[in-house]
């Protein structure tokens, strides 16, 4: 695969990474600030789980589109993108709420074992990552379209991977979260409230209401 195309992919990711911040910040910031055991390693692994799941969802979408015989260069349905976004919000909101009620409520979480299991931090990071991957933002679509110009599957795959790597610098500040939560204890409690409100907002206001009434 030629170097010029890889650099283009990196530059595309780096120049449009603010979109990723817009979709991920409301999910990741309260979630990472509110986790019970706060350490740099755990924080980095949770962020990695989230980002990994998001990448997996992109590949799932790619596989589904190609299985349906849809060419990204010709097919872009804004209605489908909007519908997918609504499902993304509902799934992501549900994951955040399960985490709020299962793992975070009243210091140690509720006593319901299945809820605690499904709402644990790792499952939440993975589910939220998969959900956020459903948002088909314009930069993602641009990357998908450009990736097919490589001429073969492998080059397209690497184009997309490098695009994704290009967006990652925007997530670097998240690694400093334990530095704050260890010093200002109240941040954890505030983040949990934010997470619960965000979960409700995602499920009801940008999830169910648009699903049924728009």
């Amino acid at each position: 695969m030629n170097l010029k195309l890889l650099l283009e992919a990196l530059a595309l990711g780096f120049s449009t990474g603010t979109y990723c911040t817009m979709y991920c910040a409301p999910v990741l910031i309260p979630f990472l600030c509110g986790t019970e055991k706060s350490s740099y390693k755990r924080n980095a692994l949770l962020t990695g789980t989230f980002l990994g799941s998001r990448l997996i969802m992109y590949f799932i979408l790619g596989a589904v589109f190609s299985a349906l015989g849809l060419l990204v260069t010709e097919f872009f349905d804004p209605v489908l993108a909007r519908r997918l976004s609504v499902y993304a919000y509902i799934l992501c909101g549900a994951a955040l709420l399960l985490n709020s009620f299962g793992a975070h409520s009243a210091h140690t979480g509720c006593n319901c074992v299945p809820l605690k299991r499904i709402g644990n931090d790792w499952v939440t990071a993975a589910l939220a990552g998969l959900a956020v991957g459903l948002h088909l933002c314009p930069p993602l679509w641009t990357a998908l379209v450009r990736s097919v110009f490589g001429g073969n599957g492998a080059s397209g795959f690497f184009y997309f991977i490098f695009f994704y790597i290009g967006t990652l610098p925007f997530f670097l500040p998240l690694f400093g979260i334990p530095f704050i939560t260890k010093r200002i204890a109240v941040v954890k409690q505030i983040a949990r409230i934010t997470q619960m409100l965000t979960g409700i907002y995602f499920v009801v206001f940008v999830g169910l209401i648009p699903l049924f009434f728009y």
Partner: protein
Amino acid sequence: MATLVSILLSVLMAAVVFFYVIVMGNFSGAAWVYGLFLIYLFARMTFAEQHNKGSGVKYRRIFQIVFAVFFCISFISRLFAERGSMAITSGAMTNSEIPFCHIAIPQVLLPFTITRDIIFPARVSGHYASIASMLCIWLALTFTIGRGWCSWVCFYGGWEEGFSHIGKKRRLNLLAKNKEIREFQFGFFAFIVLASLGAMSAVYCEWFCPFKLVTEFSPMNTIPGLIAGVIFIGLFLSLVVVLPILTKRRTQCSTLCPFGAFASLTDKASLFSVTIDTQKCKGCMKCASACPFGAIDTDTIQLKKGRPELTCAKCGECIHVCSEKAISYSFRFTAHCKKPEAKNNFERTLQLFLEPAQLFRFAAFSFGVIMSDSFVVDSLSIIFSQITHFSK
């Protein structure tokens, strides 16, 4: 000497009022009436404070309630003149003609920093409530009175100020829950900021602002519009009317207002703060009960923190009820500096004139005068014209 200082301050305020209210109001009858009312209010406040520390607080309450009521009269009448209703029209949305209020500032800043897009459908400049003018006002207040805006100027807070003084007795005491309420306010603030970034729209204005009911609202001709309407009405009735009456506190300002939380965070940059003299404090907790913003807890007093919590809005209610005179306004950056001893009457008068309490009240009231002039004069003109019309 104290009387001389009070007279001097009142004369200075009269000059401010003359320029901003009477001259700017084209010497109209309404401008004269409001101008004289303001001068009277400030003079009474200053003389009351000289007589008994903290007793001028009732004039602050009167000012804020009057501003809130007249602001709404003026704002709604302007909406009717421009659009024919209080409902936001699609034309106003597409032409970005929605008036921008200070509560929207925290929602706009982060998306603008990241994407350079202004997510609120308002004009950037030129309009009487444009984004640029509101940002300038916010910057000026941040460096001067800080969160004092909420208790001295905010035209929405005046509604709660009024309702919280309707009942004589407190029927619901939230003192033990102060910490949790503060945490909720900052949690809600963070949610609003992040959700506005995610949705690229002013989430608080779309779904959670109780003051839509007394300003403008989305038309309720769709199910989402109806849901939003029910939320606005529910929040207004519960947080602005019922809970302030029951708790004698400003519940919307201390639980939901994102600008209040934001102003609390930026208040560190303001010139003035409130301090508690831990030597004089007897721990009676009257200040904690009186605080409408829940900024004084049992811990604040018992741990001898020497200052209220982050959400203090410098309203002066605690100063008013403190029988030990242990609470006062101070300069934030010179709080630990020793005051030089005055050698003669002139220096003593100057020291009295430059007291932080005097300067803070002057700055806060001036802010109120500047913000309120056009709205109140406008409302009074409408009322006077209606009276003249009916008397004919």
